[in-house]
């Protein structure tokens, strides 16, 4: 079951933005997130907005079908063009996520990208990423993507251990993600990411080390490592509640994080966001950095979130409802919120503090500044950058980032 959308005010039928949202837009990069809400099966830990063929049967009719999906999404890209009006910005990043984007034919992904290129134009150095399931790509598929303009690919590896993959309901065989990296490189992808998950029930420290070593050995230039979050409403949450699998202790998560940072650091991967490491600055995921630095992005697809100039909105979740809205010439937006200055200040602190560059101390009010002083004393913030006016988390601080944020926003 996908998680619930936030509450907000309604989005106008035509999707129009308040005028102030576009003020100063030229100064900010613009990105596109394209959501593909389909999966072959649902993984037990996943609460993303995605649907299996069985789940969709009879609930959205032909509109929700994945055969027609690329065409529907292109409709939203055209809507975006209308809403953003004469915004001259070319698109800096495109990120196709899911779900499982690679359940669609490679040609569909290329078509969606082409629509963005047609309507907005792509910046010369645009970063174009898709997520990919290791089992649903082959060299031909990858070549089609590469030729169609994709230059970055992110594989959901999660773990090198069969028993861990099984708890996560991941169907790929160990070794396959590593092979994908080689295939992607062969197809000409400059940037390749592997996603890892740690803290899965049943995973040991050594299992985790083995996964890190396997990932590093495959030669990506980017690794994301996420603690497994047991979201309410997922199959995994139910299994834990029933006592079928044990809940992983927070301290174990902390240990695994330290192992990750040490192992990745030793292999030349530097952290640049709490859960992300890259071998070079160019290897960072620029699209994700747009999220973290308050840039503008349009999220197209069911349940996708967008942000333009202090307006956040999100689309209806169900693929059928989404397609129906667009077919009726209406915005698929389900709700939106207009951020106040204080909201934006708080968001900047909570997002930027997660980055290697940290957040400027000038964002803090006196109480937050006092809290920052304490965090520095407690060894949660780095002293060098602090002297230069920036709050940057130490290794221990990264593990307690949310606690630090709670105090800094005061």
């Amino acid at each position, binding site marked *: 079951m996908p998680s619930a959308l*936030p509450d*907000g005010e309604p989005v106008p039928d035509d999707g129009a933005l308040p005028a102030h949202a576009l003020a100063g837009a030229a100064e900010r990069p613009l990105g596109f*997130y394209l959501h593909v809400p389909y999966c072959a099966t649902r993984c037990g830990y996943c609460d993303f907005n995605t649907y299996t063929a069985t789940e969709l049967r009879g609930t959205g009719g032909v509109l929700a079908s994945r055969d027609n999906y690329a065409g529907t999404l292109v409709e939203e890209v055209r809507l975006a063009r209308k809403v953003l009006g004469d915004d001259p910005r070319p698109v800096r990043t495109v990120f196709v996520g899911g779900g499982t984007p690679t359940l669609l034919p490679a040609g569909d992904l290329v078509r969606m990208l082409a629509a963005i290129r047609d309507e907005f134009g792509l910046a010369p150095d645009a970063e174009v990423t898709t997520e990919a399931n290791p089992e649903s790509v082959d060299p031909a598929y990858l070549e089609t993507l590469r030729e169609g303009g994709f230059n970055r690919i992110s594989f959901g590896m999660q773990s090198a251990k069969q028993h861990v993959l099984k708890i996560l309901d991941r169907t790929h065989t160990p070794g396959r993600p590593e092979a994908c990296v080689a295939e992607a490189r062969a197809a000409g992808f400059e940037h390749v990411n592997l996603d890892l998950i740690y803290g899965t029930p049943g995973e040991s420290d050594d299992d985790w080390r083995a996964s890190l070593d396997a990932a590093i050995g495959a030669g990506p230039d980017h690794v994301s490592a*996420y*603690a497994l*979050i047991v979201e309410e409403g997922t199959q995994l949450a139910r299994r834990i509640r029933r006592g079928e699998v044990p809940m992983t202790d*927070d*301290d174990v*998560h*902390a240990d695994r*994080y330290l192992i990750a940072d040490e192992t990745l650091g030793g292999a030349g991967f530097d952290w640049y966001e*709490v*859960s992300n490491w890259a071998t070079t600055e160019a290897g960072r995921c620029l699209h*994700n950095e747009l*999220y*973290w630095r308050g840039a503008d*992005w349009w*999220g197209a697809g069911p*349940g*996708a*979130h*967008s*942000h333009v100039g202090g307006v*956040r909105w*999100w689309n209806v979740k169900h693929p059928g409802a989404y397609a129906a809205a667009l077919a009726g010439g209406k915005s698929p937006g389900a709700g939106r*919120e207009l951020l106040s200055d204080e*909201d934006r200040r*708080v*968001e900047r602190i*909570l*997002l930027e503090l*997660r980055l290697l560059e940290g957040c400027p101390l000038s964002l803090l009010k006196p109480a937050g500044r006092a809290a920052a002083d304490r965090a520095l004393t*407690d060894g949660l913030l780095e002293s060098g950058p602090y002297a230069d006016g920036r709050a940057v988390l130490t290794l221990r601080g*990264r*593990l*307690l*980032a*949310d*606690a630090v*944020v*709670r105090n800094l*926003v005061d």
Partner: protein
Amino acid sequence: MPATPNNVPEPSRTDPALIRNFCIIAHIDHGKSTLADRMLQLTGVVEQRQMRAQYLDRMDIERERGITIKSQAVRLPWAPTEGPGQGSTHILNMIDTPGHVDFTYEVSRSLAACEGTVLLVDAAQGIEAQTLANLYLAMENDLTIVPVLNKIDLPAAQPEKFSEELANLIGCQPEDVLKVSAKTGVGVDALLDRVVKDVPAPVGVADAPARAMIFDSVYDSYRGVVTYVRVVDGQLNKRERIKMMSTGATHELLEIGVSSPEMTPADGIGVGEVGYIITGVKDVRQSKVGDTITSLHNGATVALGGYKDPKPMVFSGLYPLDGSEYPDLREALDKLQLNDAALVYEPETSAALGFGFRVGFLGLLHLDVIRERLEREFGLDLIATAPNVVYRVVMEDGSEHTVTNPSEFPEGKISDVYEPVVRATILAPSEFIGAIMELCQTRRGTLLGMDYLSEDRVEIRYTLPLAEIVFDFFDQLKSKTRGYASLDYEPTGEQSSSLVKVDILLHGDKVDAFSAVTHKDAAYAYGVRLVAKLRELIPRQAFEVPIQAAIGSRVIARETIRAIRKDVLAKCYGGDISRKRKLLEKQKEGKKRMKMVGSVEVPQEAFIAVLSSDDSATKKK
């Protein structure tokens, strides 16, 4: 429905021989209010269409909980349908009595205003401990007892069995026990006839200086204090000046009258009569239950006996959850005190809970009712600390401390600690004797005696420290007897006991709100339990937090909250941002509800869970 009889004698001009002053003694739910309703209808003072259930119970809480806290007196005209007084209209003054253990003194004053009482017992349940205690009180006051079984219409009614039981208790024949159904009205007219026949008329000296006993005092926001009195000698007249004999304070009678059942002014009230007076005072303390009222000019010199100042037995700290509501709490307590002479309070500061009040109560029900009214009528969110009794601590140097708050328990060389004790009466089916005795023994009880009320019902009497009762005794009693036992207790003095103060230390800092006085044999268990509970309730902090229980400097229990190592969400992408900001807002709200104890953040919930008497007291009625 019979109409109001003709030739109804008027107040101040009623022949005492025609007056019958009586009350009803009953257990909660045994139907007292319903019976009173029926009497109002039958005597025609309330017309059918005005009737609402439990007419006499004014406050919502009373109505909801089915209990009567404040008594009232209603003047009912009744011409008996048979017997010696047949056809002549009598005046029945029905004085409502509070039904709970905490209000024993008020009950005793209500009883002192009567010559007889209706002993009302549920025909399906038999007599309960509180009823029995009040019955004994009535017998001590030489009241004529009219035994009545109610709810005889219930399929589960056992009138024969319980008639026998009542007959044994009061020494009459089982046939003398009246059988009524207040619900259907069956037998109520016969009951009124019986009251006229059996209850003696009041005897007083009509031409003596006026002496009237206050048996209730109620604050009304429009009229000020309404005082209910029974004139014993002489007469009170409207607009005369009166004197309160305990304080010597004088007032003008702005209004005098009788309730029937709405307040009806009259020229005065004469010897043997019952009525109300209004003097314009704003605080029930100026018109105290048990006091004697006389005329200012040519007044009496000797007061009626039996007056006592109410004395709080149980104390609890009341703190607003939101510290900014402290002034509201003070105002609310001030208002409640206008109507409650037994409510005492003084400001108190707790390092953990902030500003609040240490409030004294007559007992647990009193505490409950006050707390509920503060929350409901005044919209306050409160933390109530676990109730405690008053200790008298004598030091080796002979100095003495009265401790109403455990955190004020003195340090140093203590010679003796005295705690209040009560005489508890428990009525229960005899199959539970073992369980009850076991419970009382673990609560440091001393068996005083045991009697069979009937074949399978028993009355057990114990001396118990009041402190053991205010904790969770009643709940334990109910659960060990599947709800069948009833309890009554009355203070009987104090005893010297081996009591110690257990302190709780968080990260080395004493938390005053968690200090408790316990018997030394129970201190260890208390310490271990509280420390374990706190460990569960206090979230992990940025540093390791030891939690200790200590007697003086001796640590008797210890737990450690490990330092938190991870507090970060792994992912934060586009769609997570709104969610994360809202989560942060929620967490900030949560942080506001944290109390800083030294350097440790303690959630409000931890205080509530540890301190609140929710587990023990609120279910008591």
